[in-house]
């Protein structure tokens, strides 16, 4: 599902955040990537989702070699990856409207988009709040909405960046339970967090000094 080798990345201010990273994630796995703030977790996820072009190394995701993808093929790959970014801020729309917006932009007609959006909201336990303004959601419901957005178009891979920030310990467990529930529906997940990791999380990798260990 994900095969990374010798991946390095240097930021615009010449800080080397990733250095010869090797990573392997199998189909159906839920992997937690643990690392301190500014360790390079978000950059790694952006590289894996073809949002950032790799500078060096091999990045094979869903059978596609990202460094060799054209812009159209990269967009095509992004459609097969669900991504919940760090600090996800909902749009000024209703919960249902926000998910339907993504699906309509991807080509669904209104009825079909709303139908699929509702299915995604049911999947994350947010269907009851479909008509609520998205920006008024509590932190855990925001994570639910972000996950609904990410999985609405039925991607094969889910990348989640720091979903546990701003959550209480109990809410963190709920969020993790939700990720496990999504995994049961066949989706492969890579979750980046600085911790703490709720008990019962899947395989844990560590990102420190630009390298991933435990891979």
């Amino acid at each position, binding site marked *: 599902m994900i095969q990374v080798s010798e991946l390095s990345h240097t930021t615009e201010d010449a800080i080397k955040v990733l250095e010869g990273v090797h990573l392997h994630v199998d189909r159906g796995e839920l992997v937690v990537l643990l690392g301190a703030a500014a360790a390079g977790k978000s950059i790694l996820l952006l590289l894996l989702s073809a949002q950032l072009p790799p500078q060096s190394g091999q990045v094979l995701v869903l059978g596609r070699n990202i460094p060799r993808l054209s812009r159209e093929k990269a967009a095509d790959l*992004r*459609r097969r990856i669900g991504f919940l970014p760090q600090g996800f801020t909902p*749009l000024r729309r209703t919960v249902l409207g926000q998910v339907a*917006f993504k699906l309509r*932009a*991807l080509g669904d007609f209104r009825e079909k988009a709303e139908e699929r959006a509702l299915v995604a909201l049911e999947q994350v336990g947010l269907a009851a709040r479909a008509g609520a303004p998205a920006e008024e959601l509590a932190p855990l419901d925001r994570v639910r909405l972000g996950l609904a957005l990410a999985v609405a*178009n039925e991607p094969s891979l889910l990348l989640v960046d720091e979903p546990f920030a701003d959550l209480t310990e109990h809410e963190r467990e709920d969020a993790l339970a939700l990720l496990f529930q999504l995994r049961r529906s066949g989706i492969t997940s890579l979750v980046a967090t600085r911790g703490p990791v709720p008990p019962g999380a899947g395989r844990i990798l560590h990102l420190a000094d630009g390298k991933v260990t435990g891979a």
Partner: protein
Amino acid sequence: MSSSWFVFGELVAALRSRSVLCLGGVALVTAAFLVAFSGLFLLTEAEKTVGTLGPTGIAAHLSPLLSTRDVEALYLNVRGRPEVKTLSYLFGQEVGKKGGGILRIEGTGPDAAAKLAEALRSTQGVARVEGPGRQPSRGPALPSSTRLGLLISLASTLVLALIVARFAYGALLDDFAGEIRLLRLSGVTEGTIQSPLILLGGMVGLIASLLVLAVLSLLHLWAVARPWAFGFVPGLADAGRVTAAILVAFPLGLLIGGLGGLLGASLTGLGKFRVRHHS
């Protein structure tokens, strides 16, 4: 394509009073550019069609709105003047001219002809007076000061239109930034994100062209009704030249509007419209 139309609809729905005001400004400045451009068609003297005018020769172009009775009354009035040696009337069609006919006059002398020409210029129903002593020319050039003024107006309105467009699209995109980030994250292509902005620019250009159409049509109607009041823009009374100016305004308006939209589309490449990373 359906995705682009959807994004276009959402972009239009995201318009707030600030961005609407700025886009209105773009349409107005673009219309000002198009009006200045029309000056190239309308400020030049009409093509002379009555042959060489000697030192005593005068050609009075009559308004196309005059009735047969008015033309006859004007003819008799001119014929009765002591400065007139010979007088003939040419129908517009005879000299390949659209609109009213021409009174071709020979004065009794150069001074008399000059006096008569002066009197005719302030006569109601006379759109334009040529002569005495003016040589016919085809496609006469504009005076250099007018030409320079037009060029400066064209350049400054074009630059101003692009500057206002930069602010307008900046304001609009600020209200749509979250949606653009989500679109990028979801794998929507750059073409789908950017083409609605170019389309919106084209529509702003179209509105500017329609404004020019309205303004020139109104001015044309006034110029035909009161030819003496618009003598400084000789082409305004000429339906053919006004039509040509309007026809050129449409593609030019679309082009300038589209350029503004392209500028807006290029703004979506800024960092604030991309997915941010924290570590």
